[in-house]
């Protein structure tokens, strides 16, 4: 069965998010003074073949550990959906 997975990768709360900081500063400069915080992360979309949603998630988790995520500086969430095709 084909599953769609989205990996949401964000900088760890405890490390400096340099991109978020740059976005935050620039938006404030543009006049968005109500802004409190901005963080910048990334989304990786994957389609994969798996027997179940659970095994799809496990497989994507392993991809995160091996390549997609640097766990020293980033955290991630995985969202799995069954694909129609």
């Amino acid at each position, binding site marked *: 069965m084909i599953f769609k997975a989205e990996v949401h990768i964000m900088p*760890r*709360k*405890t*490390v*400096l998010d340099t991109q978020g*900081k740059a976005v935050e500063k620039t938006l404030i400069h543009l006049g968005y003074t109500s802004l409190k915080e901005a963080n910048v992360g990334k989304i990786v979309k994957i389609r994969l073949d798996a027997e179940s949603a659970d095994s799809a998630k496990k497989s994507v988790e392993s991809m995160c550990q091996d390549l997609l995520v640097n*766990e*020293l*500086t980033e*955290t991630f969430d995985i969202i799995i959906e069954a694909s129609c095709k």
Partner: protein
Amino acid sequence: MDFHKVGLSDSEYKTILEILGREPNALELELIGVMWSEHCSYKSTRPLLKTYPQKGKHVVQGQGENAGVVDLGEGWGLAFKVESHNHPSAIAPFHGAATGIGGIVRDIIAMGARPAVSMDGLFFGDSNLQKTHTLAKEVVKGIGFYGNAVGVPVLGGKTFYSPAYNGNPLVNAFGAGFVRLNKIASSQTAKPGEFAVLVGSKTGRDGIAGASFASRELDENDNASNPNIQIGDPFEEKLLIECCLDILDKDLMTSMQDMGAAGILSSSSEIAQKSGCGIDIQVLQIPLRDKGMEPWEIFLSESQERMLLIVKEENLDDVFKITKHYDLDCKTIGTLTDNRRYKVFKGDELIANLPIDILGDTPVKFWPSEVPADLSERQAIDLSTLKTTSPAEDILKLIACANGNSKHRIWEQYDSMVQLHTIMGPGSPVAAVEVPETKRACLLTMEAEPWKCFTDPYLGASETMALSLRGLWLSGADALGMTNCLNFASPEKSERFYELKESIKGLADTCRELDCPVVSGNVSLYNETVSAPIYPTPLVVTAGLIINRDEILKAGMTRSGDKIYLVGENDGSLGATRYQKMKNGKPLGKTVEPDYENEKLFRERAIKTAREKTANSGRVLAGGGLAVALANEAISSGVGMNISIKPQTTVESLLFSEGGARAIYSVPNNKIKEFENTWNGFSFDCIGTATGDSLSWDNLFTIPISDISKAFLEGE
């Protein structure tokens, strides 16, 4: 709270109780624990470092400041220092190396100097392992990322591969900057009543939960075994450079200190203690990046790109205006007092109250020293195993090996020309940079000889130091001073402490005998993994001066028709050389004994040769000995050589021995007489002529320089 958790021993805790006359509260214990750690207090090495010669006619600022300063003349000084970032780079190679650059740049700013040069000493594991390449790639990327963005050129460095650094790489970052001598900043000139101002990034949880905090629970879903690594922001650092120099230039600050290890705690306590003051700090005033930070986290945080300035009340408004212009956070966080106490307030509540000296005047630790049981084994060398059957093949192997080949794949990633003052950059044995607004040049050499230090820490360190000086002298420079990074294993093991002690002695004796004071430095201990300690690795960077930059003698400038001279003895030692290591698979045998009188004779003549321009090119003998020096000179000049010299002992020793004051020169025919007059009183010999497109040696070998070039550029 258990004092062991903050790294204090039973006896240290007893001393603390005696000083305080009471038990410290939890926050106080954290503060003392960190300031008494090896990392902050240098407790194992302070008595040894005192043996360094510290005074010299060029020294403006010696050890004890953020960086040393030497006099370059015409009102200019050079602030310089080398610092390790070994452990952070082992955990997170990219960010560790990047923040290493950031840290050394701030040390230079803290002296009031504009950062102008950086160099890197990199020691990686086995060059045959993929893991080594992955790590090295990340470290180099990190250095380039930060250094290129912050606009400080990388002028060279030292890269060394050995399985001894598997799992424990070394990243030593060197920084230097130019400062007007009447504008030098200090961390010892704060006065009671003045304000402590924090400029730069907000304080987050960076660097907290490192080794000694691994047992703490962290919020969020952070993996508690991972320290919160520091992430650098070079663009913020660039603003910090300009902002601090601007404030200094307008005479709006009285003292300055960068924030490195133990962040706010160490910077504020050091500035107060060294200035003979106390300080009150208001923790609620410190701008925070993370929510819910505890006071101990705030004080120990190693968030990057922050500086502590001491400002008089009447200048505060102007300082705030300038920091606003640079878009930097700025907050008054404390007041200097005359009571010599370190007090922390949370609103009205006094949450820590310590005598300032307990944080700055930390106890020293004496460890037992014992000659390593295997030292005689390390020093035993069987010359019969070192026979060469094909000198040509061996030369090519020595040129192509990981420690001999071109490092262009590394330094091409660095900007070496930014600021437009580079005279000699990466790839040259000596780095050189213009002194602003003058005809002068500042020259720098970085050296480390881990194999030689492993087989004999004293002799190895001495040879390392002498080698760095010879490079300067040969280029025509007078040595002004040196900075050193001492990378060693655990001092708690008596054999390792012996290596540390002997290495320092070797450096100290050589610096004293050859008139090169030590102005700054850094010590990094506990460099070992479960399997083995690293080699004893003292790294030195020596600064020199040439009054007229047109008189620099460079390498790689040999012209066809030049006579090739060898100055110095034909033989050094084969012990712990690149050749010996290649033949035996591990370093064995001692390097040469120091001969200071001979070094001084060399110094005088080498400097004269450069200034009188009696040679077109010159190169000191280093790794790979005479054969590799000639081969490197041939490929960098693009001209072959016919060499004719008979061995006094063995062919191997003539070709490949290392150590001692020795160099090759290329002398044009119309300067031969002058050159020989200069070297009168020192051993020298005309050994050949530059010609053709091969390196030929009597009937020993002929190697096309295209083959040498290929080996050098492509490696093994």
